[in-house]
Structure formats: C-alpha cells, structure tokens
C-alpha cells in the first residue's frame, strides 16, 4: 500500500453503519434515480443519511435533486463536511466541477475517488447510499478493493435481455469475491421476471418498480 490516502479512507467511514452502493453494469436502469430517492426516503424516516455520487464522468444525482451543485456551501473542518440537501449529507464531484464536462481516464478516476473519500467527513450515519456509474471499471474496483468488506451492494436491473446479462456478469464478480449483496431491485417493470435471477444466485429479491409515465 503506497498511497497515504488508502489508510485514512476506512477511518472516514467508521461512523457509517451501512454503506450501500447502488450498482448495475448497464446504464439507464435507474441507479441514479433509486440511490437518490432512497437517500431522501431514508432521511425522511429519521435515519442519518448520506449520498455519494461516484459517477465522476457523468454525475447526475444533483439533477435528480434539482440543485445547482457548485452553489452549495461546503464547510471545511479538518476536512470537508458534506452539505446537507433535503436532510441528506451530499457529496459529488459536481460540487467542484459543476456541470462542466469531466473526461477522466481511469487513473484520474482512482485519484479522484481516493481524494474525495480521504477528505470527506461523513460523521455518524445510518446509511450512506452510493450512486455508481455503468460498466465495471475503476470506480467499482476502487470501491470493492478498498472498501469491499464494508459494502452491501444493492443491484438494479430492468427485465430487458441486455440488462439481465449485465447484472448477471456483475453478480458473478461479486459472488466470487465474497462481497455482500443486499438485494436486487427490478426497475421499470410490471412483472417479477427477475425473481428467477435472484433465485439462481440466491440473492434477496426486493421487488419491482413499475415504469411511471
């Protein structure tokens, strides 16, 4: 371990009871909407809640929240205290980059991951929801490799063949690495087609969310 930030990251998350990355290799299945809405519901129910946007090259939780990310006041106190938005402690690279394009090669993604997690002071939280990008690349690997024993992955898929294949590839990766999986949400679906996928991999089926027009 040659990066000083890697030692401090687990400490910064010591006060967080549940770290819930919302994942699916496929894009457009509802990760951003679900992670954001879950954080709002969680805070509404009185849980101390955080939301971290890890989709560095295409951050969008701030759009769902309807806020201008670079206008929030960020308090510095031995690090960065995430601003509170609708009761949720919120951190996104867009607090700094705004809505400018942010093309990052993988190495820069790792750097940004480590920097943000090393300086953010979440304090005590019941739930930290994490929005993740599509694909399986640096953002996901940093999370699995350096916080793998802390996370409880929440998987999202739609009933389309493209989405099912993608989530199966992700499940295989998580299972073989013995990472914890919280459960699977079937989004934009009136059916419960993914019950069979849940059963195949022995994962909790958390229900289906219909497509809202």
């Amino acid at each position, binding site marked *: 371990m040659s990066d*000083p*930030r890697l*030692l*401090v990251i687990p*400490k910064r998350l010591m006060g967080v009871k549940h770290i819930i990355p919302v994942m699916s290799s496929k894009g457009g299945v509802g990760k951003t909407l679900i992670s954001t809405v879950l954080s709002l519901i969680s805070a509404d129910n009185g849980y101390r809640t955080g939301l971290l946007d890890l989709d*560095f090259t295409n951050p969008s939780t701030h759009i769902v929240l309807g806020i201008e990310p*670079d206008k929030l006041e*960020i308090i*510095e*106190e*031995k*690090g*960065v205290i995430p601003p509170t938005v609708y009761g949720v402690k919120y951190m996104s*690279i867009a607090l*700094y*980059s*705004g809505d*400018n*394009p*942010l*093309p*990052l*090669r993988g190495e*820069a*993604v790792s*750097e*940004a991951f480590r*920097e*943000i997690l*090393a*300086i953010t*002071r979440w304090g005590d939280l019941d739930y930290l929801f994490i929005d993740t990008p599509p694909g399986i690349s640096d953002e996901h690997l940093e999370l699995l490799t350096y916080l793998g024993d802390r996370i409880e992955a929440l998987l999202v898929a739609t009933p389309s063949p493209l989405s099912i294949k993608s989530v199966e590839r992700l499940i295989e990766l998580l299972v073989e690495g013995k990472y914890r999986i919280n459960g699977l949400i079937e989004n934009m679906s009136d059916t419960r087609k993914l019950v069979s996928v849940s059963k195949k991999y022995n994962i909790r089926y958390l229900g289906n969310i219909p497509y809202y027009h």
Partner: protein
Amino acid sequence: MVHEWALAEALLDYVENYAKQKGINHVKRLVVKLGVLQSIDKEILSFSLNQLLSLRDIVIDKIDLIDEPVVLKCRRCGYEWSPKMDDVDESIREAIHFVPETVYSFFKCPRCGSRDFEIVKGRGVEIDSIELGEEK
C-alpha cells in the same frame, strides 16, 4: 482552505504505519512533495502536521515540504505546458484545491483544445521520502 488537516492525517497515518512495521517510532526526516496544481497552504499543512504529531506515538525530527511545479502534457498533440496557478480564477483554483482531477473540467490543451492530457508532475500531496531513526 482548511481541509489540509485531512491530508495531514493521511500522511501521518502512513508514516506511522510504515515506521511501526519496522519496529520504529522515530523518523529523522520526512519529505513531502506538494504539487503546485493543488495550491496547498504550506502553513496550514505544517500547522496540522505539528498539531497531529503532538497527539501521536511517533516523533518526526524534521518535515520538509517541497513544491513540485506542474507539468501537463497533451496526449493528442504532444504539447507540454505549465499553467500559472496564480493566474487561475479563484473559484477554479479552489475546486482544483479540493479535487485536483477537476482540472479536466477547467483546463484544456492550449494548442489543440483536447482535455486528454497527462499530469506529468505537480498534481498534489505525495510522500517523497521517509528517513527512519533508530529502533525503539
């Protein structure tokens, strides 16, 4: 810009861990490179390091904070340049101060407009060397 404290913690965690693995709690000299891109406040970082050290089970005789100039190199056209951070807009400097990778939002190659450039050096806080003292 007082988030330097968080970075100081990371540095000392690392140094302490490194020394202890060798059974030592005394460091003669720690050299930290400060990439100029991140505009780290040397006084605040120094202050943070010293405050933190007084609470820890490790002694560091001397800490050197050394500026490392920024060099960026465009992958598309090969152009190399060194932005003057003092001339950069305050709000942009601040963003890069917290997350140096936001540089990819704000800078582009002055020759070809590409944002696919390499930070050859001068990104941010990095440990350059740790000179250990005697065994404890």
